[in-house]
């Protein structure tokens, strides 16, 4: 078992090394792309700052709490995008390169996550991390225990969202052989999760928790971080994340059976 895990880690690191080298061949472009990814964090920072400058803000959330929530949102979108780029995956499936994934002695979803992400999204992860640290440092009165549990909740939520994107990408390939809209969907998810879910009504809360599960990695960890929910509820949220990740994984593996080699 441990040996198998080690093999997967080596495979992931090797794939990442190759992808980073490919990405850095055109250094100026790599820098431009990383900066572009940082813009989404900047946009969140500016819009939240303006809202709190001209009004009393979002009910129940202080300025720094909102910045922390937006930081988690940008970070999770960055992480998901680092692991999977739907458009690339569907192109690999359309032009037949995906055949190579099926012949390797590794889990197909693991191979997808190690070979199809956007490396420039580290720009978003780094800028969001900086904003999170800034927000938490200024918020004060933080419970270290709550922050640590929130980190676990965030990781599980990020896993559920990643599996959702894998699932929707494969489903989109099976149904339409195309998936340009998935990136838009991810962008919309990112913007939506910059703000607390209750502002989108009950339907919005349900949709962004169970349908497009971005809230699992953003809203609930932020709520726990600022002790707006208790640990018992956070265990429930963690369970939902694990169950959803498993279901999306299983559904993706099932849908991959409908992959038709395109030659190439």
């Amino acid at each position, binding site marked *: 078992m441990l040996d198998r895990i080690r093999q997967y880690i080596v495979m992931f690191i090797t794939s990442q090394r190759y992808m980073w080298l490919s990405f850095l061949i055109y250094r100026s472009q790599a820098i431009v792309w990383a900066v572009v990814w940082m*813009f989404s964090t900047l946009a969140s920072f500016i819009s939240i700052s303006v809202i709190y400058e*001209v*009004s009393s803000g979002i*009910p129940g959330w202080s300025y720094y709490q909102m910045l922390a929530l937006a930081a988690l949102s940008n970070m999770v979108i960055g992480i998901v995008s680092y692991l999977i780029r739907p458009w690339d995956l569907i192109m690999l499936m359309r032009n037949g390169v995906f055949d190579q994934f099926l012949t390797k002695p590794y889990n197909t979803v693991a191979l997808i996550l190690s070979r199809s992400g956007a490396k420039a999204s580290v720009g978003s992860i780094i800028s969001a991390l900086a904003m999170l640290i800034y927000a938490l440092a200024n918020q004060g009165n933080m419970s270290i225990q709550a922050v640590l549990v929130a980190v676990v909740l965030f990781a599980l939520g990020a896993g559920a969202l990643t599996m959702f994107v894998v699932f929707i990408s494969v489903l989109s390939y099976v149904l339409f052989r195309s998936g*340009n809209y998935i990136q838009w969907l991810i962008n919309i998810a990112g913007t939506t999760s910059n703000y607390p879910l209750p*502002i*989108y009504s009950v339907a919005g809360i349900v949709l962004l928790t169970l349908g497009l599960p971005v809230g699992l990695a953003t809203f609930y960890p932020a709520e726990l971080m600022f002790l707006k929910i208790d640990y018992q509820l956070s265990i429930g949220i963690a369970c939902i994340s694990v169950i959803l990740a498993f279901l999306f994984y299983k559904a993706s593996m099932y849908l991959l059976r409908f992959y038709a080699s395109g030659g190439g």
Partner: protein
Amino acid sequence: MIEAGAYAAAFKVNFKNMLAYKMDIVLDLSFTVLSSLIFIFVWAAVYYSSNTNVISGFSLNGIIAYYIVLAAISEVTGWPKIINNMEEDMKEGGIARFLIRPMNYTTQLLLESVPVDMVFFAFGSLPILIGVVALGHLNIQASAVLFFAVFMVIAYLMINIIGFIIGSMAIYLTSVWGVANAITWLFGLAGGSIVPLMFLPQSVANALMLTPFAFMYYIPDATLLGLIPAGAAVQSAFIGAFWVLVFALLASIIWNKAKRDINAVGG
């Protein structure tokens, strides 16, 4: 001299091609409206918690109208489609095929991108605009509609000329998507697509009104909603026309330089 019929035929073919991707149009429209809807939810929460009807001169109804009109504007000015075609032509070498045709390359690009924008305007922007005016019971003056049309033309020309400049750079850079994304983001941020410029500090907003950024979203939007009086709109129209000329001049210089550096091998 090429016949006008040839232009019309090329335009018709591209228009029909675009209509073939109905799902793309529907999805694009849905996501654009959804983006605006998010900000409407956010500002509604802000207004309700602030116990006020007006923030920085905007009522809640006003801000809802602002973001809905923004969705209509974004359909046309959100992304210069000309970039997609130019980058592909440069990378794949198709540029050589276009340059030997008895039709100017810029004209060919316009014949490809204008039908796409027309489809998005007809099936995206127009229904949104009609909807917001009809359902929002907005009191819109005829002069505001006229100035809105003028500003939309300015914004359309500006974004496409900027797209042409970025596309021309594809000869030197392998991919211009990063630059294009950075610039469209900047226009969105400084142009009022995320936060209306009226919410920014007065000095910043005034400075941005003189830059090309404001012409992409805020000025057309605010003009239609009557937030910019006719006198100021005339002044803005001249400023907008000035920027269009500046960008056109820049595009001409860059394209003339880039054209000389094109090397197409094989085919």
